[in-house]
């Protein structure tokens, strides 16, 4: 497969996943802080995405309205969902002959619908609705991909992109929420506490699975551990890393690609970090450092994939 295509499908997977996760994050945040005047709260979303500079270059204050506009439909914000879907569409357009017409047509329509959203559609009061629309659209995309993508190298790179992004986003979601939630753990069982943990788990669509596998426990550490390393939960970081390893093994085994040392070591390193999750109480400071380390290693892994498969291939090979 052409190197450039591998890169395009990888980013296709990443951008759709990014859009879905950002919708989840905004939705959760919205349900945590219904008060539109709670400005400090919305700054946290900007911080975890490291968008302070971009955001404050055009906004004085991180109000709910400003942050939602910035992340949902701001055409000037490189990280807005509108742009993520747009970049996904551009990548899909480039590899259109590799993907099904249905996958393309859906993404094209999705982008059109995102484009039609106006400020009045995305206020805090309508956030749940618009987030549900974005999540459903991303999941429709995933479903069409699952049902129609040919299982060649392109599919593997697509999955790798998706899971690198998902692991990264889950680490961000946990990091920001954990610090807020820790402060109320001193008063376990209070109504607000439970409802917020519910919201966090629900934002990752993990509430039912968590309840079923850990009946009776609602400690912050257990919830964090679930999202960090549960081997069966498809949005946990641990799960995503196993999936990346699996798809790389398929590229090697089924498609005869040599992964090379940097890619192989990159995967091992990030899995090693992920394996160090404490079995007892999880400290917010530890979690923050952990999230940073995971994000750095995923960045390196993405870079290694770029050099190995998307970039210039030496003639001798």
């Amino acid at each position: 497969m052409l190197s450039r295509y591998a890169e395009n499908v990888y980013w296709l997977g990443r951008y759709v996943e990014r859009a879905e996760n950002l919708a989840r994050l905004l939705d959760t945040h919205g349900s945590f802080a219904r008060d539109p005047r709670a400005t400090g709260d919305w700054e946290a979303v900007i911080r975890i995405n490291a968008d302070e500079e971009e955001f404050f270059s055009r906004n004085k204050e991180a109000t709910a309205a400003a942050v939602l506009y910035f992340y949902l439909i701001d055409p000037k914000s490189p990280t807005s969902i509108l742009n993520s879907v747009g970049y996904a569409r551009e990548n899909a357009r480039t590899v259109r002959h590799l993907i099904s017409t249905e996958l393309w047509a859906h993404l094209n329509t999705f982008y059109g619908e995102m484009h039609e959203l106006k400020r009045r559609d995305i206020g805090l009061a309508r956030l749940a609705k618009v987030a549900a629309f974005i999540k459903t659209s991303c999941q429709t995309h995933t479903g069409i991909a699952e049902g129609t993508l040919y299982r060649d190298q392109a599919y593997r790179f697509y999955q790798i992109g998706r899971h690198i992004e998902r692991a990264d986003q889950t680490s961000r979601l946990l990091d920001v929420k954990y610090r807020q939630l820790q402060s109320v753990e001193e008063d376990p069982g209070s109504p607000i506490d439970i409802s917020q943990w519910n919201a966090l788990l629900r934002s990752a669509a993990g509430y039912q699975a968590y309840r079923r596998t850990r009946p009776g426990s609602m400690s912050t550490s257990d919830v964090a551990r679930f999202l960090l390393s549960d081997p069966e939960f498809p949005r946990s970081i641990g799960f995503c890393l196993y999936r990346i390893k699996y798809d790389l093994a398929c590229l090697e085994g089924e498609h005869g690609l040599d992964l090379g040392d940097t890619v192989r070591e990159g995967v091992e390193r990030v899995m090693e970090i992920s394996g160090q999750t404490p079995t007892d109480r999880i400290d917010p400071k530890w979690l923050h450092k952990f999230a940073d380390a995971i994000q750095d290693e995923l960045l390196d892994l993405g870079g290694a994939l770029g050099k190995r498969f998307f970039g210039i291939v030496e003639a001798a090979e």
Partner: protein
Amino acid sequence: MTRLSKAVDRELYNLGITFTLYHEGSSVDRVLPFDLIPRVLTPADWETIESGSIQRVQTLNLLLADIYGPQKVIKDGILPADLVFKNPNYRPEMVGLKVRENSYVNVCGVDVVRGGDGGFVVLEDNARSPSGVSYVVENRQLMRRTMPHLFEGMNVRPVLDYGLRLHQALCESAPAGVTDPQVVLLSPGPFNSAYFEHVFLAREMGIPLVTGQDLVVENDKVSMKTTGGLRDVHVIYRRINDDFLDPEVFREDSMLGAPGLMRAYAKGNVTIANAVGTGVADDKAVYAYIPRLIKYYLDQDAILPNVPTNLCREKDGLSYTLDNLDKLVTKPVGEAGGYGVVIGPRASARELEATRKAIEKEPANYISQPMVELSVSPTLISGRVEPRHVDLRPFCVTGKSTWVLPGGLTRVALKKGSLVVNSSQGGGSKDTWVLE
């Protein structure tokens, strides 16, 4: 029908079957408007168009082999030397370069219209990278989905095998000795207005769509960068102009081609389709000589005649043109896409004056032709069926022999009375039916 028509527009947009219009620095994705009423050609009409198109393609290929070979046509005084050598699309790099099967023009679009007497005439030949074939196939599929009952009992000749036929012709043109050639489509990339068509063709042929950055030339051989390393490339169906193919030979600033490509081409290690330098044969001035060239090379009369053409480069042609500007259609020689065309009887006095100045300044750059009354075809306009002018572009695919896609692209001028069918200027398209 209006309801169906709206559904079709929506579908076209959702599928991204669009072209990009550049206007004053901004770009917009537009759907090429599709008219639901098919244009029907009888077997006899088609027989004329098909055999006439094949005759022209054969002539163009013989002409190119001659121009870049023995140059007999010039020595025999049939074609003026300066029309060839001063033509900006003449490529001295091609002199003496062997082209497999002498098939320079692998894909040719012959623009045909039906005149006032009902006969077909050729407006121009497109021997560089004619576009539009994707619409022919997509239009047919749209029709079949939208009005399947319409096809019942009608023996409409199929168009869906275009990709297979083109791939076969390209394989036939591969460098000698290559048994299982790797064909690629070279595109300028997603920002090109015809990118949708490039994707379509790559998909229909099952070949990689590459851009210049995917190609590497080493030891005069072309390969492409893949996840598993470099892979040989034998045939390049290119949809970029000569100018951009190889910065070592043509435009130095080109980012679209591959440095060294022409070296590999000259060594016979790769086939470029259409061949480099075909633009010298589809020039609007050379066009005027095509009937004489058909006689010269094939000893036949043109099955599809030309529109009588006055060359402003010639004294008589110039004075006749300037005397009859208000009755003639004038065209700049080097332009495509209908740009710069002035239709005398419909132009304002000011437009005519501007045209006169432009022609006087650079006469060799202009030709003129009498008004051709384009035939009309019933067309759905705001819920009513009205006559609108149409043209036809059949597509000729040439490897060892020439095959013509039965039908071709019918473009329709949607503006009342308009004769300009170009998509960039308010044209639409129709499904074209050739009956068995």
